[in-house]
């Protein structure tokens, strides 16, 4: 038995080390791949988010807050770290990584809304996190969402199992081999911001009959409150003010949410109790304009530019005071 266990141990260790080496090559390769998936992470982990204002949040932040306009209107540098499909728990990966940087931002705009409170049981678009899973600030928050994530972290190279394209791109990039045309991807965003050039074709009347009353329940509201408290406390420790901003969803979507008031009140309570700020722009008149939306949840590029201009006015007032 002893010999058997020793051999199993030695073989497993050899296997683990080979797997680790293989995985590290892919990790490193992908971490050098400056494209829409990894470009912003590369900025964060290379200490290059030394901007005055940083936008955080979900896809509403990502496609609706244009740093170019903020930079022009406020004379302050800005970077958008909004994360597509990310609820508050997933967003922790971003701000925790951001706080590891030497150069900290001077102001955080945290985009919040009803849908960011919903809790997911699966990791949406998992591959964007894979090369960074060895970092506790990324792994920690995600492991709460996906309890089997430890396999990806501790059993190399299983995190890339089934991602043939990532295996290939990672290896090729690491060894400087030219990527195939279908593997090449460019960074098409502007400092994290991705404009959506699409106009919603029809008034989303179907939303009138929907009732999002139970979409976010009391437990999820309480969970979101805790995450926001944790985030604001972490930034406060570094003397960085945080402003919670509720950007406008399409008015029909807004009206279909029956417990919206409760959620808005929660954001206000968080702001009040932490000495931070909450700007409720959700009822802005822009929310009534169909042609400013790509879908009921997201504004298109025209809508993004207009709402960012309005946001800039508030930021300028805030900075003055």
């Amino acid at each position, binding site marked *: *038995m002893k010999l*058997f266990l020793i051999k199993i141990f030695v073989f497993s260790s*050899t296997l683990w080390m080979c797997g680790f080496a293989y995985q590290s090559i892919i990790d490193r390769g992908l971490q050098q791949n400056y494209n829409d998936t990894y470009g912003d992470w590369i900025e964060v982990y290379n200490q290059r988010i030394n901007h005055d204002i940083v936008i955080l949040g979900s896809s509403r932040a990502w496609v609706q807050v244009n740093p170019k306009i903020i930079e022009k209107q406020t004379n302050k540098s800005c970077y958008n770290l909004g994360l597509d499909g990310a609820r508050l728990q997933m967003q922790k990966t971003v701000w925790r990584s951001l706080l590891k940087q030497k150069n900290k931002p001077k102001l955080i705009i945290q985009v919040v809304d009803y849908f960011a409170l919903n809790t997911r049981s699966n990791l949406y678009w998992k591959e964007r996190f894979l090369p960074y899973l060895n970092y506790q600030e990324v792994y920690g928050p995600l492991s709460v969402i996906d309890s089997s994530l430890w396999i990806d972290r501790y059993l190399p190279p299983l995190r890339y*199992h089934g991602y043939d394209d990532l*295996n290939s791109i990672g290896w090729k990039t690491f060894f400087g081999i030219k990527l195939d045309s279908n593997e090449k991807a460019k960074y098409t965003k502007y400092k994290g911001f991705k404009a959506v050039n699409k106009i919603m074709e029809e008034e989303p009347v179907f939303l009138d009959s929907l009732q999002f009353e139970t979409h976010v329940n009391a437990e999820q509201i309480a969970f979101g409150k805790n995450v926001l408290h944790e985030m604001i406390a972490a930034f406060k420790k570094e003397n960085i003010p945080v402003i919670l901003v509720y950007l406008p969803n399409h008015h029909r979507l807004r009206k279909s949410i029956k417990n919206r008031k409760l959620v808005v009140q929660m954001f206000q309570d968080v702001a009040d109790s932490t000495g931070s700020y909450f700007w409720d722009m959700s009822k802005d008149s822009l929310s009534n304009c169909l042609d400013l939306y790509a879908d009921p949840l997201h504004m298109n590029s025209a809508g993004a530019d207009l709402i960012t201009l309005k946001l800039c006015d508030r930021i300028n007032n805030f900075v003055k005071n």
Partner: protein
Amino acid sequence: MAFNSFEFALFLPVVFAMYWFLSFRKKIIQNIILLLASYLFYAFWDWRFLGLIFGSSIIDYFLALFIAKKNKKATKRLLVGTSIAINLGLLGFFKYFNFFVESFQEVFTLFGSSLGGSTLNIILPVGISFYTFQTLSYTIDIYRGKIKAEKNPLNFLVFVSFFPQLVAGPIERATNLLPQFQKERTFQYNHARSGMQQILWGLFKKIVIADNCAHWANEMFSNYGSFTSWDLVMGSIFFSFQIYGDFSGYSDIAIGTSKLFGINLKKNFSFPYFSRDIAEFWRRWHISLTTWFRDYLYIPLGGNRGSKWRQVINVSIVFLISGFWHGANWTFLAWGLFNAILFIPILLFKLNRTHLEPITHQGIISSLRDVALVIFTYFLVLHGWILFRSDTIFDAIKYTERMYNRIFEWGFYSGFGIDILIFILIMLCFEWFNRKKDFGLHFPRINWLLPFRWLAYLGIIASIYSYTGEPQVFLYFQF
């Protein structure tokens, strides 16, 4: 829990550790651990059917005790008849009820009248075809006086539910397996090492060969109308390796896992695609089922005794029932009949025991005659697999027709990768060199070869990682 699942990768080491380190070499504790592990393993599929396994095990346990106790032949016959009726009744209800109802309805519809009665929403309990045959063989063997009835219920329950072979065989005999649970097991290094190698080989066959072949086989059998003749030839070849990799892979993992617990299971596959005639093929394919039918159906029917006509009937019955055992579908019956048609001439000319030794058992290179026989046998088997895989007999006929009608026009639409063919070739090479051994992954035990052996194991693991096919449920779970 499937053998190729992550749950099993956690389950196996935990049970292994408990079995060897917490049992204090006491057979009762070893058996309790195995029983609990087996029921847990089964509960991962569907805990509701645990009662079915337990219930049918207990019934056969008591019936066997009564059979052994009674002296009157008639009473013994009644009791064994009860056991057969209960086991086949359960199998019939869960597996064939809907098939018979639907078939009767169709027959009556053909004659212009309608028959009442509706099908039920019956879930097929995983492994029922395997464990009912196992318990049946036990009570029949007791009736025949081949073995003594097991008095210890724990030993008997573990014998029925032993997790490595519970859901897809090999179908064990009490004469082989039960005595192993009656004594304590001691750890043997060589045995365990061989078990690990066999598990690895089984995983390779399942994940790399079967699951990748399944992709193309499914594609071509589902849309045979859109492919060329040569695509369909490849489709049937892919299915032949899918079913082989899937089922023999499962058996390898089952046997390898059992070895880790000091238990020897019967060999279930013996490199069947190297067979030189159909009789040899059936001696090498799903051996535990073939021998079961031989011992409990063919021989009681009269076997090779009696007139030629009687032998033909016996063989036909066995192949038809064997086909039907695989599932409630006319295609399986047709497949059974097809094999009977291939087998009968060999039997009539008394050629069925021509090839008892493995091919080229002395040397490496085969004679051209043997190679031709292997190819011809594989060619015949391939046509059987078309029947087996098709949804209906009509589909099988259409598939075969389309496969041949433009066979002289070379060309492929499907664009399958060359890599899967390379892996099939690698598997066949390993199996060829180890065709006299128990399974395909053996290396000479020479010390200086150790690094190369390990390199080969790492290579196999790397191929499992890199060429994982779309995960498919083990084919034989549905039988």
